[in-house]
């Protein structure tokens, strides 16, 4: 099938090329206009004043030419100045050059007679206007509901579950029925798509066991109704809206303390399935919908106002020391950009300075759109962010607050007086640095109000700039005074903190009766305003000959009504863009790629739709069904194309993407928290704090386990883990997340603190939940490795000199906290003085030697080094023997008030399970027999690296036997993947645990303190699960 597809494309491609090159007639409108638009019209057509008086908009005008004469000679490109200048690189000026293909088109067109499609009129107005060809571009055509089509093949027709399938198949040659993914895959896919969270194991199992035919519909019901739905889809919308909890633009990157209210509004609206046209209208014009305040704000009004946070998302430096004309205009431009890319799929900003070079968006269109927002976003009458917060305070709270504020003002007055004193003091102090003849004139000059100063005084202050003391720089002169003034601020803050809590929304509220004129800015420069532009819809999106103007000032409401009118136009059935843009985004989040792969660029530089009819049908259906996002999603998710198997080929037979989806950054973190069972599902509220760890990485405050969408989005401080997995760093907004696969992600998953913590928590959860496993898993016994016995054991006994073997070995059973003894008392009533410490010990009588025993874990050879020491001149000292269970007595040493080296340098061969005993007895005399005998074993074996073992290694009290439970593995799998492990996976995990345990026992440093080797091995297994592709991707 795939082969055939390639064949089809190549055959048709060939045919088409030959026609295009040889037989088609080139015209100005079709072929040459786009070239001139991209390269020439800026100077020779679009503007009222034409460079060199040359106008290239019509053939007749080209012929009459400009100051250098005729631009073209029809039929003779070589004689045509237009062609010559472009070919020779003289035109266009600057870096951009006309491509060879474009040049060839130009030449052929001139040589072929410089044809036009339509007769040229004598008079045309200024500017480029929109040509019929441009208007005929796919995205500007009206949305047309296609006729129902069914695949001709009966099998395929049977497989088509919905109209989506019929259209997807009809558009292609696919006639193969689609293989549906298995139920488990569908459940996982649906959960992640709709909620961004995995099902629990139990949830997944219950859907798998569901006997009803309508199980999938009920699954969708449940997920669409869950509060997590709004969080997941809210996150998608917040990307496009450019959501951030900080202002950006300046170094401060000041926090937006109330931005989260807009985030919560988005979540709520999506959970309610608020009709999307209403959702758009509220965000664009919530203040106009809210109307005037009468008494306290009503809940509805508050909701409407909160919605306008959308128009307050652009980076805004005007509250952080950059309240400049440039900064204000930049904020307006960014806001328009967000509106354009999110709701119209067009980036209008190219038309800010001139007509768009590629898309039919006129310079005037840009300002007509800007005019819609001008009354509310007026750069000449601007409020910085803090000044435009809308208080939600009630009248009664306000009165109480005013009382407290009056108290605060008393202190503020005190402060002001004090500051005045200090200013004076600083002045005098500074003046003292000057000689007397200067002092008085400087004082007078400084104290004279700036506007009243004489030239001489101004000059004087300019030459002596250090006298220009202002409150802002007072700290530079009198640091202590400045500190003191701060204490007033603390007192004021303390008083104010008693006010009833006042909440705000970051809203956009148009002042009543404010309708400033919008001027077109020449070259986008606000200092070069030109003609007045009226609020209107972009020309190209309106049928030829029509013009949709928005009201200058709607008399029925206090505001101008312009934004409300824009919202209504955007969501009217005649609008070709908005519904297509929205359904394309929704489709993209279900398939990984949109039907239009460039979701924010529906213009010439974007991609065209892979399935134009399907796109139109979805858009039309979306509108017909009342702009319900949830209905649209249900429609998509019940289609056969959505439900088919993914990842077998990159593209399915219908040309739709068939890829696995790498979880988004937030989802990865959320899924880890869900897997460990620590996810806090609380909804809404202020942003969760971030901080820098000791290495400077920005991290989420460690105790916070809420979903990632609640983590503060500070533009200048992206959370390292989220950023690594492509979470946007908001500059303006994020239309499309990249999907990177890089080593830094792997390093983070191998070594990052967050995942290591989560792995430990998952292990804990697995152990807990393994207790409650049901049959058959409760009884599951696996061929799990038993942890190796401790290598050292401690006892007493007797060496048989005749056989040369250890005759008896009785374990010491009492641990005192620092040594092993035969019983709690010393001497023990039965066994006397036997004891072993980490370094040495004490034997009892001749037949009760103490024995430190090493058991070989594997076949190996052992080299022994040690030193037996005895520290008393009394008695007759002690005797040390090294006895192998395989070869008997290896050596024998005596120490009496001195030391003996107890080395066995020739490798001692042992098999696994053999013992080497270090036996110390009292010789004849039973007094003063304390000894020390540290030894070191160097163990070499074929199947393991060399190991050095000391006799005090692992010297500790009784240890609960470490053991593995098969149930841990099962429970870990369930928590991480929402499924049981397969038998094969169980074995894989068991083998892994076996290897780990072996390694960990050999490397005590691999087990952090407070953990056992088995626990650490399980944690390592859990980390592998959390960093695996099954965890990071959903198919």
């Amino acid at each position: 099938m795939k082969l055939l597809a390639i064949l089809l494309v190549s055959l048709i491609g060939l045919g088409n090329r030959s026609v295009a090159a040889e037989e088609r007639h080139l015209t100005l409108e079709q072929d040459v206009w786009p070239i001139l638009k991209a390269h020439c019209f800026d100077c020779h057509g679009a503007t009222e004043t034409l460079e060199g008086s040359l106008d290239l908009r019509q053939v007749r005008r080209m012929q009459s030419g400009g100051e250098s004469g005729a631009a073209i000679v029809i039929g003779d490109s070589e004689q045509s100045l237009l062609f010559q200048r472009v070919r020779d690189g003289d035109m266009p000026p600057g870096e951009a050059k006309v491509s060879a293909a474009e040049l060839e088109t130009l030449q052929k067109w001139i040589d072929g007679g410089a044809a036009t499609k339509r007769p040229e009129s004598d008079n045309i107005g200024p500017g480029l206007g929109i040509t019929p060809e441009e208007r005929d571009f796919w995205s500007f055509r009206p949305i047309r509901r296609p006729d129902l089509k069914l695949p001709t093949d009966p099998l395929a027709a049977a497989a088509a579950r919905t109209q989506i399938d019929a259209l997807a198949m009809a558009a292609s040659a696919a006639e193969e029925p689609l293989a549906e993914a298995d139920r488990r895959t569908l459940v996982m896919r649906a959960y992640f798509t709709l909620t961004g969270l995995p099902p629990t194991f139990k949830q997944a199992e219950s859907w798998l066991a569901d006997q009803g035919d309508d199980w999938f519909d009920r699954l969708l019901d449940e997920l669409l109704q869950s509060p997590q739905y709004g969080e997941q889809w809210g996150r998608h919308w917040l990307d496009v809206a450019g959501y951030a909890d900080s202002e950006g633009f300046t170094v401060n990157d000041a926090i937006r303390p109330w931005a989260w209210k807009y985030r919560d509004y988005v979540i709520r609206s999506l959970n309610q399935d608020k009709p999307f046209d209403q959702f758009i209208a509220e965000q664009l014009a919530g203040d106009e919908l809210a109307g005037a305040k009468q008494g306290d704000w009503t809940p509805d009004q508050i909701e409407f106002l909160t919605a306008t946070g959308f128009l307050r998302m652009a980076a805004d430096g005007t509250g952080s020391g950059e309240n400049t004309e440039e900064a204000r205009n930049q904020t307006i431009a960014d806001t328009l950009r967000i509106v354009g890319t999110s709701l119209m799929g067009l980036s209008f900003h190219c038309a800010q300075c001139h007509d768009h070079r590629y898309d039919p968006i006129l310079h005037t269109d840009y300002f007509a759109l800007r005019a819609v927002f001008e009354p509310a976003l007026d750069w000449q009458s601007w409020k910085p962010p803090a000044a435009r917060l809308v208080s939600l305070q009630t009248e009664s709270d306000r009165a109480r607050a005013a009382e407290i504020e009056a108290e605060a003002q008393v202190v503020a007055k005190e402060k002001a007086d004090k500051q005045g004193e200090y200013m004076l003091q600083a002045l005098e102090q500074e003046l003292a640095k000057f000689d007397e003849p200067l002092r008085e004139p400087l004082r007078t000059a400084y104290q004279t109000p700036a506007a009243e100063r004489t030239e001489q005084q101004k000059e004087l202050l300019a030459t002596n700039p250090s006298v220009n003391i202002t409150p802002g720089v007072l700290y530079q002169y009198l640091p202590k005074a400045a500190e003191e003034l701060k204490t007033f601020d603390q007192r004021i803050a303390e008083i104010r903190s008693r006010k009833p809590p006042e909440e705000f929304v970051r809203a956009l509220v148009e002042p009543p009766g404010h309708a400033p004129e919008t001027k077109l800015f020449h070259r986008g420069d606000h200092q070069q305003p030109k003609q007045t532009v009226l609020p209107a819809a972009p020309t190209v999106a309106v049928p030829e000959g029509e013009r949709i103007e928005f009201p200058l000032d709607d008399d029925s409401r206090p505001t101008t009504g312009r934004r409300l009118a824009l919202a209504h136009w955007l969501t009217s059935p005649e609008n070709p863009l908005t519904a297509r843009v929205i359904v394309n985004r929704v489709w993209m989040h279900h398939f990984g790629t949109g039907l239009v792969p460039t979701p924010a660029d529906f213009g010439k530089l974007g991609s065209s739709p892979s399935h134009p009819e399907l796109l139109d049908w979805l858009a039309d259906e979306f509108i017909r069904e009342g702009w319900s996002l949830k209905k649209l999603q249900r429609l998509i998710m019940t289609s056969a194309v959505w439900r088919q198997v993914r990842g077998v080929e990159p593209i399915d037979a219908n040309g739709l993407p068939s890829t696995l989806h790498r979880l988004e950054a937030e989802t990865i973190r959320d899924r880890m928290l869900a897997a460990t069972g620590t996810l806090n599902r609380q909804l809404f509220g202020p942003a969760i704090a971030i901080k820098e760890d000791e290495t400077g990485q920005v991290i989420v405050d460690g105790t916070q386990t809420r979903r990632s969408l609640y983590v503060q989005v500070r533009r200048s401080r992206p959370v390292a883990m989220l950023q690594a997995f492509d979470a946007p760093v908001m500059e303006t907004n994020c239309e499309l997340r990249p999907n990177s696969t890089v080593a830094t992600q792997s390093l983070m998953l191998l070594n990052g603190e967050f995942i290591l913590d989560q792995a430990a928590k998952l292990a804990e959860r697995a152990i807990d939940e393994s207790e409650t496993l049901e049959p058959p898993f409760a009884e599951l016994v696996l061929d799990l490795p038993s942890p190796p016995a401790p290598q050292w054991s401690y006892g007493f006994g007797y060496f048989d000199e005749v056989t040369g073997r250890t005759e008896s070995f009785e374990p010491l059973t009492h641990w005192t906290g620092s040594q092993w003894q035969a019983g709690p008392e010393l001497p023990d009533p039965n066994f006397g003085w036997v004891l072993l410490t980490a370094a040495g010990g004490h034997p009892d009588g001749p037949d009760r030697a103490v024995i430190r025993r090493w058991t070989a874990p594997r076949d190996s050879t052992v080299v022994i080094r040690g030193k037996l020491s005895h520290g008393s001149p009394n008695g007759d000292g002690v005797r040390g023997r090294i006895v192998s269970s395989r070869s008997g007595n290896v050596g024998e040493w005596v120490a009496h008030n001195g030391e003996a080296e107890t080395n066995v340098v020739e490798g001692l061969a042992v098999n696994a399970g053999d013992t080497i005993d270090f036996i110390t007895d009292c010789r004849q005399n039973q007094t003063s027999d304390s000894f020390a005998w540290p030894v070191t074993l160097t163990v070499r074996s074929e199947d393991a690296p060399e190991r050095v073992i000391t006799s005090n290694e692992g010297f500790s009290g009784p240890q609960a036997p470490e053991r593995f439970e098969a149930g841990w593995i099962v429970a870990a799998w369930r928590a991480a993947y929402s499924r049981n492990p397969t038998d094969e996976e169980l074995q894989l995990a068991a083998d892994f645990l076996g290897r780990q345990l072996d390694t960990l026992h050999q490397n005590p440093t691999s087990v952090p303190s407070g953990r056992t080797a088995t626990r650490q091995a399980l944690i390592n297994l859990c980390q592998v699960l959390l960093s695996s592709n099954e965890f990071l991707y959903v198919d």
Partner: protein
Amino acid sequence: MTDPQVIAHDLRHRREFLRAGSLGIGGLALAWLLQQEQARATPKMLPKSPPKFDLAPKPPHFAPQAKAMISLFQHGGPSHMDLTDPKPELDKRDGTDYPGEIAYSFVNEASKKLMGTRWKFAKHGECGMDFSELLPETAGIADDICLIRSMHTGANGHEVSIRYFHGGIPGVLGRPHLASWLLYGLGSETQDLPAYMVLTDPGGPPVDGINNWSSGFMPPLYQGTVIRPKEPRILNLDPPPHLRGEPQRQNLDLLQSLNRRHAERFPGQADLDARIASYELAARMQTAAREALDISQETKATHELYGLDDDATREYGTRCLIARRLVERGVRFVQLFLAGQPWDNHSNLGTALPAICRRTDKPAAALVKDLKQRGMLDETLVHWGGEIGRLPVTQNQGAPEKHGRDHNGQGFSMWLAGGGIRGGTIHGATDEFGHRAVEQVVTPNDYQATLLHLFGLDWNQLTFPHNGQIQVITAGRPAEIVGNILRQPPNAAEG
């Protein structure tokens, strides 16, 4: 399922029909028919996936002169009239009032009194480049470097100018660093080490912190990897102690075996293989980075060259040496930062300036010498400079010995060496007091355009789509290649 051969036959038939028909029916009809057919086939064209980014080596636009770059960034604003830009007129009028307008940052200590330099200048090298006695070692490489005396940011603030240098627009955050553009355009020569590394100072982060190595709106793939002055040297590179060695190797083995089993189910999914490979790379990086940072492999002579035997120069020298080792191993871009902004000499110029010169002069010069003797200088561009310079007037601190100089973004110096730069060149000039760049002014945008050019990239053609806009490093601001500091003039190189 229809037999493919039948369809193919049918198609051939149709084409023949159309060809034949073209004799009879008009060309327009034929075109229409073919268009219809193409429209039907459109969905067969592969839909574009979301953008994917990688660091595989990519061909430049034209032959490059530089392949790697080491930037010794001097935060704070080195005092050019005391180091690289002698001003006899300033010295002569020491103590008199500056005749023009000056923008101050510290108003309380502002003064109009001109302050000449207290250090002696002399000419060095065959080219006769001037250096003050504070930079004796840099003076020794005069013939290898190009000194630009006409740098200009137009803004006095530190962050404003720093961001201008790194990102292309004064003061604006969220733009990719110059090095991110290089990586985006050229990929990486090494697949075992991060291609863009940043060496920070044990004293702390530089002013403007992590913004100094941000990839802005580009994916984090292009972000600088910080080599910290203490362990952990690279974040997340090394396993915590308990996972080192065998335990992590076993983790990786299990992970990869689970991943491979998973990938078998999805043969059409290249992404899964890429992730498996990226784990292997991560493991390789652990060894490669450790090796690259191990300067004990260097000879005693090299240690001495960089001043590792001297307390004053050891720290900076070590980082310069590590920078060379990184570039040697295929790292594209290395940038060294100093803690805070030690060149910000508002006060105590007489002691603070010699101290920071003493710390950095020898190692910086050693880097150029070392690269040259290893034959690496031709392809390695070295940059030395800060974001601004300093004012010719006194910043008044009471006692004269405490005087310093305030910020100056109107004119200052920096130098470049290697990587296609013409050594022994002085470019541009400031006015008679060293206040403003007046001849052959170079802005950070010019600097960026020139650097990209040396790497074989046309700065206007190296575009990145972002928010529906085509972005270039200079953000569409005016820029030009500073042609006469290059060994090969622009046109020759591009041809």
